[in-house]
């Protein structure tokens, strides 16, 4: 395997909770607790998990939109954590983001043309005329029309708005795109259109995607590899098909059992998890999943498992495989 384009090592985000009004830190919320993965050029890495598991925080930390508490983000051989604020801003040219809410992520006061042009202005690309030409190209590229440039976001449907968001992300010719639940706010009928668009664009421009979602079926459709997160940690990471056909971690199994299957003949056994996701301020000792795990053992409440590579290249964090 060649050198990965993006490598994340032991990324952490802890939020102190102050109480008592005297600035005393009484608790720490471990939103993301030691996440590591790497992404190859042209690959799509899916990250799935329930809401609040830290997947969006992870995505935003890669761009340092949220400042990590600890960890390394190596992009193209450079550790992004070493960059100054100004250098990081420039570095964002190569890593762009697509947001979940296509209504909130576009400034309602700006025209679509201006929204797409703005990244190029910020990164001082081309003159006004060239930029406008590129805006028109980008609009066509994402399946809209050049004349849409003069319109405002509120005049578009959700799917169209998400295309505008994609065009904005593409404007500065990035290498990596972090897509933070890009289709979860859209109608199911529109979801696949947007997903197909993303796939086409990836082929055309050799893009690398980090695709964050809570919906396993969406991720399966687009990802080469998938990481499953639970309470700020990756519990399983492997090739997409492998993960779906032979899940290892009990949590992955539970998640997969909840995915509806289109064939009514197939009987799946639904695994219902007990209890709720624990608060990240008070994660259970040992394996953070042990209190809900259907196959928990004694060791699980005592010792914390680590992400370990199995023989077939899959990575699992579970005592069953140690």
């Amino acid at each position, binding site marked *: 395997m060649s050198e990965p384009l993006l490598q994340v090592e032991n990324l952490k985000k802890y939020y102190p909770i102050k109480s008592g009004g005297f600035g005393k830190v009484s608790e720490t919320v471990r939103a993301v607790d030691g996440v590591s993965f790497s992404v190859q050029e042209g690959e799509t890495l899916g990250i799935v998990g329930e809401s609040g598991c830290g997947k969006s925080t992870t995505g935003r930390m890669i761009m340092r939109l949220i400042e990590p508490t600890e960890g390394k983000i190596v992009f193209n051989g450079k550790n992004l954590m070493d960059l100054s604020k100004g250098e990081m*801003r420039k570095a964002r040219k190569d890593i762009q983001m697509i947001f979940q809410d296509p209504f*909130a992520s576009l*400034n309602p006061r700006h025209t679509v043309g201006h929204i797409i042009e703005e990244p190029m202005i910020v990164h001082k690309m081309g003159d006004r005329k060239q930029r406008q030409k590129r805006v028109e190209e980008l609009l066509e590229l994402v399946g*809209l029309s050049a004349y849409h440039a003069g319109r405002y976001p509120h005049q578009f449907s959700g799917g169209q708005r998400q295309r505008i968001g994609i065009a904005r992300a593409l404007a500065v010719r990035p290498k990596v795109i972090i897509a933070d639940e890009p289709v979860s706010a859209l109608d199911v009928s529109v979801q696949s259109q947007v997903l197909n668009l993303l796939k086409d664009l990836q082929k055309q421009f050799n893009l690398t995607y980090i695709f964050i979602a809570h919906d396993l079926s969406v991720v399966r459709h687009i990802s080469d590899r998938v990481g499953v997160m639970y309470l700020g940690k990756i519990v399983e990471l492997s090739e997409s098909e492998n993960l779906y056909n032979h899940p290892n971690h009990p949590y992955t199994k539970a998640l997969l059992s909840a995915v509806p299957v289109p064939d009514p003949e197939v009987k799946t056994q639904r695994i219902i998890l007990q209890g709720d996701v624990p608060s990240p301020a008070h994660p259970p000792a040992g394996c953070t999943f042990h209190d809900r795990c259907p196959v928990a053992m004694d060791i699980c409440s005592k010792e914390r498992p680590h992400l370990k590579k199995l023989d077939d290249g899959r990575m699992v964090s579970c005592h069953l495989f140690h």
Partner: protein
Amino acid sequence: MSQATQAKPEQYIVKDKSPMIMAINDFWKAFRKNKPAIAGSIIVAFFVLLAIFANFITPQGINDQNIGIRLQPPSAAHWFGTDDFGRDIFSRIIFGARLSLRVGFLAVIGSIIVGTFLGVIAGYFGKFLDVLISRAFDILLAFPSILLSIAIVAILGPSLNNALVAIAIVNVPVFGRLVRSRVLTVKEEEYVVAARSIGMGDMRIIFHHVLPNSFAPIIVQGTLNIATAILDAAGLGFLGMGAQAPLPEWGKMLSDSREYIQNAPWTVLFPGLAIVLVVVGFNLIGDGLRDALDPRMKN
């Protein structure tokens, strides 16, 4: 959906109305129905016109003294009568509109600029600066505003311009707090996060995304504060801490003529009426703007 837009593009090239223009249209529709606000606009427009064309309107010079006709009651020649120097009160009040409106507008614009600056720093950059600035606002707001203006004028020396500066300073925390809370809200909007994600710098985010979305409440508060600024300036003038003789400032005119109230009540009546009228005007506009622009600010 993309297929639906394959029709001849040319026929769709209509310059769409911007949300700004649509917002203005909506606002105008709401404002127009608000009769008190329209009345207020007419009053203020009337005073603004008086102030602009004061030179052409006034029958007499503001400082033309004529002891022979001192303290005369209102008449055809002197609509509002004359004061103790025989000056025409009507002319002086019209020129006074200039002074009061100038103080009102400039003081509020000044405090909006400084307050916005500090509010943005506190709200956007947060942390230590936020604590420092917010505490400073708390402390300044702990003083009754007229007392603080008096104290500031005591430092700067009594004059109309110093009164203006004092009133501006006193109003800074009002706008500072307002802008800070708006910035805190807008900062969390996803389009601001999106702006950061494309590598946009803080200044551009503030000027292109945060401030334009914080505008409405500032305008409302600004209009209401012009009213109080005019009142405060007149109060300072009355105490001898504002405009000095022979400026025809309304508050100063009141304090100069109060000893003649027994025999020449018109010398006291008309400057006060002028203050009430112009302040009522701004208050009406402010209330109307609030209802039209920001229904949540209604109390």
